[in-house]
């Protein structure tokens, strides 16, 4: 009797009914699912703690920017495409700066307080625009940070163009990096948990069809406010953290880079997945640092790479890798007489 062999996808025996329901029966099948989830966590841990001290600073900034990207991706999957993440960052940064400078609170109090105040102020700033949809909403989010920046420049409040300096520094680089990484993982897993819960479905539904959400008896404005608050709280934490990290806060907190980077990371990594923007940020952050030796020409290289990437892989890296992983095949024995189905 001839034993025929045919190729079969590894996930074939463990996929039932839908893409999301699995029946696990062996270590091999468990590891098929677990390894891609554990690997990035271990990889980033090793990367962060093994690199030389200078690169640890780069990693801190990368983690913070990855959080900004996560926040952008979450808001985008709620249908709130923001072109002004810098607004949330700056409001968190200025709140923390003011709390530390005027009230004298230490970082472990001023960062949480600044995050909360920043998120509340951000939600208040964006609230009037929440009735707008699509590109009109995006335009308003682009305008507000530019406007606030000029307000600070003209009135000179909170240090004006000079900014506020001499804030309390964060302790040691290793601890700083550990905190930023912990914050990154916390926001990543919390957002994932939220999106996958039944309550989180309402946020996704907002993007798909906000009129149908309204026809389901839910007030879309209230859910948009919640989405903005969650998204801006993450960005405000980034701002609060970086304020103490740099020991100063100034108008650079409104920089356009802070709005552009999260979008670039999401596009490279793959939108709407949360893991994608994280991956994108971990690639783009160190890359832009590595190109530093090219001086200002690095922007050209960076932009060209980004353009090439988007043209070649418009779906994003994460979607591509996930698809390829699911397509891995192995040879299995097929008794003769039974054809491939």
């Amino acid at each position, binding site marked *: 009797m001839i034993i025929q062999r045919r190729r079969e996808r590894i996930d074939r025996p463990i996929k039932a009914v*839908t893409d999301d329901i699995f029946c696990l029966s062996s270590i091999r099948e468990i590891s098929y699912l677990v390894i891609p989830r554990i690997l990035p966590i271990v990889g980033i841990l090793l990367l962060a703690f093994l690199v030389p001290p200078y690169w640890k600073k780069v990693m801190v900034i990368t983690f913070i920017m990855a959080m900004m990207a996560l926040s952008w991706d979450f808001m985008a999957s709620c249908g709130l495409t923001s072109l002004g993440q810098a607004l949330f960052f700056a409001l968190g940064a200025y709140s923390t700066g003011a709390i530390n400078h005027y009230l004298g609170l230490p970082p472990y109090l001023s960062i949480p307080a600044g995050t909360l105040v920043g998120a509340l102020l951000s939600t208040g700033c964006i609230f009037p625009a929440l009735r707008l949809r699509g590109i009109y909403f995006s335009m308003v989010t682009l305008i507000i940070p530019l406007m606030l920046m000029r307000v600070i420049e003209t009135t000179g409040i909170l240090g004006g163009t000079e900014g506020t300096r001499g804030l309390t520094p964060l302790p040691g680089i290793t601890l700083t990096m550990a905190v930023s990484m912990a914050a990154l993982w916390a926001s990543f897993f919390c957002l994932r948990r939220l999106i996958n819960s039944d309550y989180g*479905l309402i946020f996704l*539904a907002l993007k798909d069809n906000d009129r*149908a959400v309204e*026809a*389901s*008896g*839910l007030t879309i404005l209230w859910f948009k406010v919640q989405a903005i608050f969650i998204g801006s709280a993450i960005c405000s934490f980034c701002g609060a953290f970086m304020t103490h990290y740099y020991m100063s806060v100034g108008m650079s907190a409104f920089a356009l880079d802070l709005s552009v980077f999260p979008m670039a990371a999401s596009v490279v990594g793959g939108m709407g997945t949360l893991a994608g923007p994280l991956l994108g940020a971990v690639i783009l952050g160190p890359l832009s640092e590595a190109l530093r030796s090219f001086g200002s020409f690095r922007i050209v290289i960076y932009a060209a790479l980004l353009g090439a990437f988007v043209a070649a892989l418009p779906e994003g890296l994460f979607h591509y890798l996930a698809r390829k992983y699911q397509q891995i095949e192995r040879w299995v024995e097929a008794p003769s007489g039974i054809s491939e189905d």
Partner: protein
Amino acid sequence: MAYLKIENLTKTFGGVVAVNKVSFSVGQGTLLGIIGPNGSGKTTTVNLITGFLRPDSGKVIFKDRDITGLRASKITNLGIGRTFQMVKPFYRLPAFKNLVVPLFSPRVKKMGGHFGEKDSLALDILEDIGFERDSSVPYKPASILPHGYLKRLEMARVIALQSDLIVFDELYSGLTLAEVASISPMIEKLIAEGKTIIMVEHRLKELFKIAHKVMVLDQGTKIAEGSPRDIMKQPSVKKAYLGVEL
């Protein structure tokens, strides 16, 4: 006392009078059909009743309560459910998860009666309207479902909301005769359960089989109202539909 009473409802868009002083009423447990040529203001009327548009003047009174100009979500929670002419599912979500969203509404919470996990509840509702539970259809994302299923999904939403008054906006459009034949009994069942229904429809033959009363709109104005048997015999209706007196 009428269950739903509309008085002199008017809406203009720029210079166009979309709905012009329309008044009608619907009794509890009856089915009112609204028909009329394209652009006669049928969908605008639906939007005005359900709060998706604010009327310029006129009143909407539901269960003796003035609900004119309230928010759409508020009106939904008071018991008026609607479907959309252009289906509006949540494309990224599996079909049964589409129903989890209305199950979160304050109305469902207040009504009680829906106990148990939202997922299994959603599957129950879907099974009742023709998504076979044992097949993979209810688990598929709405984006890949055929049109007939999406229309049923629209219906499922108002059933999940336990609406007292249901407004179907061109439920039958784009459906095959077989699909219409399977949905009509569900509507009759809803009426038997005491629900009140307004159907905006172009498929007159199918509508007339189940409607108790029919109203005809033409260019925003109500031109006729009567039983489905003799509404088409009225000269004004013939003129609106065919353009000439026959």
